[in-house]
């Protein structure tokens, strides 16, 4: 049941006015251009001012770490692994094994711990430093100058480590206590497992297999239709009968249809046969046995546990380059 919102909605809070739908963008293009021009005229007086400040700001920023990165395919930041703690010895983190223990899974374990008064004070001190040094309301963010706008897109910004260095040993110790709650390292092919591509598929009869595919293949059968299936079929018939014509859905529809080919490529699978190895499957799927890393990338559970390949298993062999 929906409850009415009694209070007055603020400008950012009101969802009703936030109808930023693509179809409205086109019609308001001309209007927005007009508003843009008027704003530019207003900016005339401010531009001179900003040019000065912008130049000064850029001079300051050059000493910072704003090195623009080239737009790579996967411009990921550093993978969050165990943080480097220079102060005290680290707790050793073990690689998660096949056995699933709760300890290994405690990725964001919100462990209940009682902080002492001193620890709390340290946290509040840090918070104060964040709030005040952050200069939230003292440095109003101005409209960027042209040069700033032209900076290339970078996705992680390194904030200077000066603040971190000011922390005392107590706070550092607090950090270390939380280290083992950080997530495990990204899977790499274990050094112990050689020739991952030639591991033969197991035949599993009754044993439990952890299903990483988790997709049920449903066939159309005339035998067991229930009400829901009938509903589905009937609507399907209506949809099929619809005459396609140029309508307001068309543009959007065609852009979605283009994306379907990606989906189809992603959903390509092979069913593992007896005697199969990753190399053989790669040959079948990609034409080259040496392309097996593509299969590992698409089925990362095999990276750490190559022995988990079994007959009848469905493996993703996407056509796309990941």
């Amino acid at each position: 049941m929906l409850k009415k919102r009694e209070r007055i909605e603020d400008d950012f809070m009101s969802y009703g006015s936030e109808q930023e739908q693509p179809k409205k963008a086109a019609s308001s293009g001309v209007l927005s251009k007009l508003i843009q021009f008027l704003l530019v005229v207003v900016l005339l007086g401010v531009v001179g001012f900003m040019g000065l400040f912008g130049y000064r700001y850029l001079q300051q920023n050059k000493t910072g770490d704003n090195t623009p990165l080239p737009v790579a395919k996967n411009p990921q930041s550093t993978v969050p692994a165990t943080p480097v703690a220079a102060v005290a010895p680290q707790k050793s983190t073990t690689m998660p094994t096949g056995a699933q223990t709760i300890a290994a899974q405690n990725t964001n374990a919100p462990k209940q711990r009682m902080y002492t008064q001193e620890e709390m004070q340290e946290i509040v001190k840090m918070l104060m430093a964040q709030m005040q040094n952050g200069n939230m309301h003292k440095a109003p963010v101005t409209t960027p100058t042209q040069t700033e706008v032209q900076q290339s897109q970078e996705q992680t910004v390194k904030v200077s480590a000066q603040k971190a260095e000011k922390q005392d040993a107590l706070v550092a110790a607090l950090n270390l206590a939380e280290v083992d709650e950080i997530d495990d390292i990204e899977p790499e092919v274990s050094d112990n497992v050689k020739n991952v591509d030639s591991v033969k598929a197991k035949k599993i009869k009754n044993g439990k297999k952890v299903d990483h595919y988790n997709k049920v293949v449903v066939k159309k059968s005339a035998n067991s239709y229930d009400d829901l299936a009938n509903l589905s079929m009937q609507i399907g018939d209506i949809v099929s009968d619809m005459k396609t014509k140029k309508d307001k859905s068309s543009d959007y529809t065609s852009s979605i249809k283009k994306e379907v080919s990606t989906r189809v490529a992603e959903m390509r699978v092979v069913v593992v046969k007896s005697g199969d190895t990753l190399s053989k499957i790669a040959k079948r799927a990609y034409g080259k046995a040496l392309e097996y890393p593509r299969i590992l990338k698409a089925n990362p559970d095999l990276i750490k546990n190559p022995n988990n390949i079994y007959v009848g298993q469905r493996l993703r062999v996407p056509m796309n380059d990941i």
Partner: protein
Amino acid sequence: MKKIGTALIAAIMTSSTLQATSNDVLVKITPDIPYLYVNHMGQKVKIGRIQDTTNRLTDDYTKTSRACPPFCIHPTKVNDKIKTIAEVEMARFLKEQVNSGKGVVIDARLKSWYELETIPSAINIPFPVMESGTKETAEKVLRLLGMQVGKDGSRDFSKAKELAVFCNGVWCDQSHRLIDGMLKYGYPAEKIAYYRDGFQGWKLLGLTTVVQKENVK
């Protein structure tokens, strides 16, 4: 007395094994729903989550940057009247409304998307049907959803099903277009829920999906 005794023992044993099975599930859907059953095209499907805690999603649903426009991020809500729901509410909806016939999950995407992979029990109403289809077509669909037309031609939705509408994810506009179309024909807003996270959210939690048209090599 004997019959009651054995029945009681059988009941206790069954419930304890069920309890044991429930406790065996490491990654549940909600704390009290480890998994649940639905029907898809008449076939029973068990919806559960992948149990490998190191499992990662690697397909096209991990793509981060679809061009905006036209694939812009949507706000939390469609409008003030339509409820936005997520996976917990979906699980309950499936268990209660869908399995009793009172509700239905609607996949608003084009048919090719639906057939490749979708949420178990979902039926497909591609958004063009309601957005730009004829009134005749729309009414046919609405009737199947439980709308009745009175003698005066007025539309009566009192027996119409509750709908949970989804599409690909937060950037996908297909569910909005379908919902707009439904509202246009008078479908009551309180009978529509918007599953915003959509198919991406579903997959990111390792939930079971169904495939109707396999792309097998």
